[in-house]
């Protein structure tokens, strides 16, 4: 590994961490799309800043761009408040307009501006190590490393200082307001941090891919935990992993580093989305199937309890009368037998003592509108789940 490679991975990891922190809160506050809006609408800010400073890494440019990001948020909220359109429409109206202004400004001044829309949107991490910061004649490292490092430092200190406030206002706005934390200040604080991070990261990974680094690790982590601190830690972990692994994939494919980081993020999300222990798609589908079977079982047991006649309790009756498919009635019967809820004698089904007790309790809960407690009761009665 050359030092340039190490530096690229370091920058990518720092960007990932700096994005993961505000990203977690954006995802929890259901404002994920705001980051997309900001990442597009900072373009005019960057262009104006560039006209003034002629330096893509100047602090003024970052400030101006972050300011445009906040203008976006304010505009979106203003349009939302008028109630003329639904909230998400407001986002969708504001950022393309601002982005178009940016693109037109670049196009009109294409001759004397060395600024490319592609560069702003997509970034090129591979060139980051060549733009070095030199203080007093000594080389102290790539400029973007310092910029993103500073932003990360500010983000982390703000996070530590206001963790409690952020947490409360994220999960219970009303409580936060009544405790005296101004929701507006926290909201705009978070928005400002997101704007600054987006701007700081845009020349490394590109504005749009900042969105991926903000949302994907947080969403992935959210599928695995419901603890805020764990979620933060996990999303930082996913971010760093994708940054480093993505770099090597890009190296191997000889393609865009930002693109490959996002692809790795996507694969990680896909894996977790499918296989997360309790919230993954497979787990959810398995649980749904189990629930469906158990509800069938309960229906069947209730039926048995209601009918003493032999004709109503014949095994075949399930197919004929209740209109269940063969396989389904077979599996329901098996489940009931395994749990010692029923006896089958000469094809006639009858409730066991345990089955009777279970059914009576279930009826009790159903009549008194406490259906949810059936779920707890299942743990006491079932040896095997559906």
């Amino acid at each position, binding site marked *: 590994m050359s030092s340039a490679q190490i530096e690229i991975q370091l920058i990518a990891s720092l960007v990932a961490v700096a994005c993961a922190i505000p990203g977690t809160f954006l995802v929890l506050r259901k404002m994920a799309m705001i980051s997309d809006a900001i990442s597009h609408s900072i373009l005019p800010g960057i262009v104006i800043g560039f006209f003034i400073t002629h330096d893509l890494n100047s602090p003024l440019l970052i400030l101006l761009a972050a300011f445009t990001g906040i203008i976006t948020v304010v505009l979106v909220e203003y349009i939302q408040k008028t109630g003329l359109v639904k909230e998400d429409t407001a986002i969708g*109206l504001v950022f393309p307009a601002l982005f178009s202004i940016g693109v037109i400004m670049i196009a009109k001044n294409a001759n004397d501006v060395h600024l490319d829309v592609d560069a702003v949107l997509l970034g090129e991490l591979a060139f980051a190590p060549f733009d070095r910061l030199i203080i007093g004649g000594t080389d102290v490292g790539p400029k973007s490393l310092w910029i993103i490092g500073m932003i990360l430092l500010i983000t982390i200190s703000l996070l530590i200082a206001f963790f409690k406030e952020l947490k409360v206002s994220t999960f219970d706005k009303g409580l936060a307001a009544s405790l005296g934390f101004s929701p507006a200040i926290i909201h705009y604080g978070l928005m400002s941090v997101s704007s600054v991070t987006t701007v700081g990261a845009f020349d490394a990974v590109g504005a749009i891919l900042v969105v991926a680094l903000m949302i994907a690790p947080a969403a992935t982590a959210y599928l695995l935990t419901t603890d805020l601190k764990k979620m933060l830690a996990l999303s930082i972990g996913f971010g760093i992993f994708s940054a480093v692994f993505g770099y090597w994939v890009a190296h191997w494919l000889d393609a865009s580093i930002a693109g490959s980081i996002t692809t790795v993020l996507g694969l990680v999300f896909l894996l977790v989305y499918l296989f997360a222990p309790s919230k993954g798609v497979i787990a959810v589908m398995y649980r749904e199937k189990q629930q469906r079977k158990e509800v069938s079982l309960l229906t069947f047991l209730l039926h048995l309890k209601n009918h003493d006649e032999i004709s109503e309790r014949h095994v075949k009756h399930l197919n004929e009368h209740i209109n269940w498919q063969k396989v389904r009635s077979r599996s329901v019967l098996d489940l009931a037998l395994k749990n010692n809820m029923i006896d089958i004698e000469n094809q006639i089904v009858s409730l066991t003592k345990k089955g009777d007790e279970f059914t009576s309790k279930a009826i009790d809960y159903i009549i008194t509108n406490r259906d949810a407690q059936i779920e707890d009761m299942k743990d006491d009665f079932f040896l095997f789940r559906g």
Partner: protein
Amino acid sequence: MRFLLSQEFVDIKEYIELVFTDYTLRTITLGTAILGAVTGMLGSFAVLRKQSLLGDAISHAALPGIAIAFLITGAKDTNTLLLGALVSGLIGTFWIRGIVTKTHLKSDTALGLILSLFFGFGMLLLTFIQKQPNANQAGLDKYLFGQAATLVESDVWTMAIVTGICLLVMLTFWKEFKILLFDADYTKTLGFNTKTIDILITSFIVLAIVLGLQTVGVVLMSAMLLAPAAAARQWTNSLSVMVLLAAIFGAFSGVFGTAISASQNNLSTGPVIVLVASVFVAFSFIFSPSRGLLFKQIRFIKNRRDLELHKTLAFMYNIAETHEDISHPHAIKLLNNFQGYTRSTLQKLVDKDYVKIDGNMWSLTERGFETASNLYTKQSTEDE
């Protein structure tokens, strides 16, 4: 656009003539107009279904499809690439739906995820293609920002045919679309297959977005879907009128946007069209008679005036009440410490024959007294 480089400014009449004679300009104008109309039409449904940002997500999600279609076929045929875009857009849409229904992640997270992940993957593929020893790959990135100038007549025909199909399907299933839009549960109880209708609408939205990729590009396509519909929404409460208006707004955005970008150097068509559409939205937000901000503000001020007039009247009533003769004159000065009183409200009260003014004195008329006493009882019953 390049073909007008020599002319800094084209006057309107000359421009209109040019639209009919110049092949490129005619194609682009027609193409953007049709595109605007179809996106406006379908966008109305997206906006009303609160799926405004779906367009943004889909247009980004279409990018890897374009790249993969190119990788597989090696050809730059527009229709093949757009087919790829359609497939990957649909995959993105259904994944979003999967995330929202199967997990506890909210729709905004799902949209942002799919948008950025697919786009990033698309970028990876595009850069990968660029490094391939295949000279044919240049021009794929026009789908990022769109290049209306590359439209040819066959593209316009494709758009027209797709628009025709959209229109046909929309008219056939108008009733179903409408009822699903406003009351999904009721639709289900009526026995309609809501899933199929839903998929039908969504697929057509995806189709419209994919059509626009070549002209407006991935990044700005969502605005084409939203802006005309959001503007149209302000002028009407009827779905059919809204769809029609949105189509008209969309078409005009296309035509005007093309005209503006053609009359200037170095102006790409896509962003200009989006800006024109945004102007339509801003205009509608402000000047729509029933919902617009301007008239809302005027109504607000008028209501406040009315309230203040009532306040002044009630104050006068309170004074007059203490006297045996209700028309006993009082000094105007008495009202001065009261905020609701202005010269114009006083004049209004005179006009309504509630009050008589004689020099510096005012007195309540019989009618004024009666109105004020009713006003008072009304208020007091409302308070209780």
